Structure formats: C-alpha cells, structure tokens
C-alpha cells in the first residue's frame, strides 16, 4: 500500500508507547505540542533518514497547538506518519492533524473520562469499601488494558493511512456528535449519582407534625432536583458570567461550611 515502508511494525508499536509522552510539556500556549513532537521524533528520524532539513520542518509543524485525548492520540500519530512516509504535501498533513485532533479529543473524553472512569470507579470502589483488595486490583487491571490498547490504535491509524482518510473526514462530524451524545447522557447520570445535597431543615406546618424540606418538598417535586440545579447553576456562572472554576470551587466550599454552620445542610 505504501511506496517506501521505512517503518516496521516494531516502530509503530514503539510509537504507541512513546505516545504516552504526549503531555510531557503540557502548557496553555501549545497544550500537548511538545510531547506530541517528542513522540513522533524517532519515527520521523527514520523516515527522513536523519535529513536535518526535513526533520526540522516536520518538527516545526508538530510544534503547533494541539490538544487531544492521550489514549487515542496514537491513532492520529500513526495516521500522520503513514502520510509522511508517502511524503504527502506538508500542508495536507498539517491540515489533517488540525482536522482530526478535535473530534478525537471529543470521542476520547466521552469514552474514557466521562464513561469508563465513573463506571470502573463505581465498581471497584464498591469492592474497596468492603475492605476488599479486589477493588484497586480490578481498577489497575482495566487501565493496564486501556494502556495496552494505545499500541492497537496506533497500528490501526498507521494501517488505515490515506485510504480511510476520506471516510474519516466525512464521518468525524457525526462520530464526534455520537460521542457527545454518549458523554452528555452519562454526565446526566453522574449529576444524579455523584452530587450529594441533603437539606436538613424542617418546617412546622401545624401543631402536631412538621415537614422535612428535603423529603416532603424537594424529593416530592423531583429527586435530585438540587444536584441538577446546582450543576446547571455552575454551568450558568461559567458560561454566561465567565466566572473562573477556581472561584466557583472556593465559593462552593465556603457556602458548604456556612450552610453547615446554619444547620441547613
């Protein structure tokens, strides 16, 4: 499929492992650019038979802003290298990188951060809470596999190469839409099960008995209405009011203490 197969399967496997350096010099200007370039270096070196000129060019391109999902970045790297091998036009290669890292991030985050983590966390925590070492072991095992998959993605990306490109570019929109759907659905579930707000106050409605605001009011209106409201309130402050997360965390913190003091929560 390729004119000059400079890279061996072993090189691609290595690439998959190196891809773990993606965030080695993470920063807000270029995000993962540094680590991304780092991981590509050995392969680039081999492709260009050490031709400093070409390597420099490739490195410069790779040093541009990129932010994608560490578990899947190998796929992108493999894909790009297969293009480098066919020495496709630099701007094409760059274009593809820019086109794909975003969707890949969306997919990766939806699957690994918002879905896999809470699930594995939930299951293994339920063991740990019984004082069983199975919990952490299970957790570790799962993520060992996930890590191993990086090599698979990388080979996949490399082998698909130019062929799959068209299809990828067409589908990337609807794929990341699907990923977002998964992500948002799970987040809806997370809000209901990971935020805990329990109002303690009660109101005396008449002589004999009094109603608990939580049980008789909020829960009657809607269970978890408070967690959802709070999450949406945060969303509002972040989006509309541009308030920084740090401030919201601090605020939440102080509010919690204050309400504890007042005996509301």
């Amino acid at each position, binding site marked *: 499929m390729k004119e000059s197969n400079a890279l061996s399967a072993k090189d691609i496997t290595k690439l998959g492992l190196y891809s773990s350096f993606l965030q080695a010099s993470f920063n807000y200007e270029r995000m993962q650019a540094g680590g991304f370039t780092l991981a590509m270096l050995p392969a680039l070196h081999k492709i260009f038979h050490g031709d400093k000129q070409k390597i420099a060019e490739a490195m410069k391109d790779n040093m541009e802003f990129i932010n994608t999902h560490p578990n899947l970045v190998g796929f992108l790297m493999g894909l790009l290298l297969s293009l480098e091998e066919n020495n496709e036009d630099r701007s094409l290669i760059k274009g593809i990188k820019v086109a794909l890292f975003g969707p890949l991030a969306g997919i990766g985050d939806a699957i690994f951060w918002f879905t896999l983590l809470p699930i594995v966390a939930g299951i293994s925590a339920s063991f740990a809470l019984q004082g069983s070492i199975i919990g952490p072991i299970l957790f570790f095992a799962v993520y060992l596999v996930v890590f191993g998959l990086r090599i698979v993605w990388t080979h996949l990306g490399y082998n698909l190469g130019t062929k799959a490109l068209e299809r990828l570019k067409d589908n990337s929109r609807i794929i990341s839409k699907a990923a977002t759907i998964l992500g948002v659905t799970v987040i809806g579930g997370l809000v209901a099960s990971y935020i805990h707000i329990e109002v303690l106050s009660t109101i005396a409605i008449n002589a004999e008995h009094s109603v608990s605001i939580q049980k008789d009011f909020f829960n009657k209106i809607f269970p978890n209405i408070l967690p959802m409201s709070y999450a949406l309130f945060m969303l509002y402050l972040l989006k509309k009011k541009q308030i920084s997360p740090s401030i919201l965390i601090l605020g939440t913190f102080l509010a919690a*203490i204050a309400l504890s003091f007042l005996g509301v929560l």
Partner: protein
Amino acid sequence: MHEITLIQGLELAVMAIIVGIDFWLEGLFLFRPIIVCTVTGIILGDINTGLIAGGLTELAFAGLTPAGGTQPPNPILAGVMTTVIAFTTGIEATTAIGLALPFSFLMQYIILFYYSSFSFFMAKADTYAEEANVNAFIRLNILTTAIVALTYGIVVFFSTYVAQNAMQELVQSMPTWLIHGFEIAGGILPGVGFGMLLKVMLKMQYIPYLIIGFLFASFIPFSNLLPVALVGTALAMYEYFRDKAQMASQTAIGGGGSNEGI
C-alpha cells in the same frame, strides 16, 4: 491516633513522585485515589483504612476530570491526605475527605501555575525544532516532567510527615459544624466539575440526552453507571446511523441533481 515515621514520610514522597509522573502523562491511571489511597495505606501499615478511603475518595472524584485541558482539584493529594488524616487523627474517612480538600486545591493551583509557566519553554522548543536539535528537545520535555514530579514529592512529604502534628491539633480544635461543612463540600464539589464539562459539551440540541441520563439515574436503581452508559450508547448509535443514512441519501440526491445539471 498514629504517628507517621520519617521513613514512611519518605516512602510517601517517593510514591508521590511516581504517581505524579503518571498524573502528568495520564498514563496508567495510578494517580487515581483508589490506587493512591491503597498504596498509602500499605505504606502506613493500615491497608484497610487505605481501601475505605480509596473507595470513598474515588467516588467523590470520579466526576472531576481534566477533560479539555481543565484542571480539577488534585486527586493525588486528595487520596494521600484522606488516608493520612484518617490514619493519624483516627476520624472517619468520610470526614477526612473534606479535610483533605484544601491540600487537593493547593496542588490543583500549583499544576495550573505550571500549565501557564511552562508556556515559556515553548520558545526554546521552537528553536530546537528549527535546528532539529533532537536531544535538547528531549531534555526539555524531561525537565518539565521532572519539575512536576519533584513538586509532588515535596508537597506530599511536607503535608504528611512535617505537618502531621499541626494537622492533629487543628482537627481536634475544629468544631463539628466546620468538619461537617468539609464533608458537605466534598459532596457538592463534583457539581463544579460537571458544570465545566457541560460548558464544553452542552449545546442546546444535546439537552434531551442530559435529561434522559439524569432521569434514568434518578429513577432506576443500579450499583454503577453502566446502564446509563448503555442507554447513552444506544442513543449515540441510533443517531450515528440516522445521520449516516441521511448523508448517504443527500449525496445521492445531490449527485442526482448534478447529473441532471449536465
């Protein structure tokens, strides 16, 4: 009421360096509380406390992800300190989580600081790139990672070994409402994290999915989120195939149209 020996303090620091690197690279997920707490427990010779603390902290932090390059309260410090505080002061892990939060925040801000300041290295990186100076380029990446790793070691050593007595006194002097307040904060905090996620993901058209996930988790009893994930998968796949079919049919029509054009 236990003591942390110097040895243990150093061991904790070493662990912090290792999981710190893992945290930075998001590699093997050793930086998650369930792992960190367990190891801490082992180091302190009280694995059971480690496991309980791990379970609780993991659940509390599972929603706080760095997706999108954001930086949540730090899971490593949360894990270490929850275990350490429960161990040294003998209070419940649920309470310890709350008291560990300030440390978690501290580390969060340190990381944020690095996120910004490491930008200055980029200029250097560019020049190395132009010169194709591979070795210098590698060193640079090692340097940044090393800085983070070391920081973890130091912060953890101080927060655990050095600060332990101060910690104990502090906790004893704390009124219950304050401690309870910390607990509560731990329960509400994920809300901020979800708010951040939603800011990234929640376009109007995705609200239905938020509602469905929320309703499902609110009314159907399950022991983990897998069912919700399955619902999400079903919906995602449905939408994917619909869109795909539509793309196909439209290009078909489009094609038809252009042919007619000829």
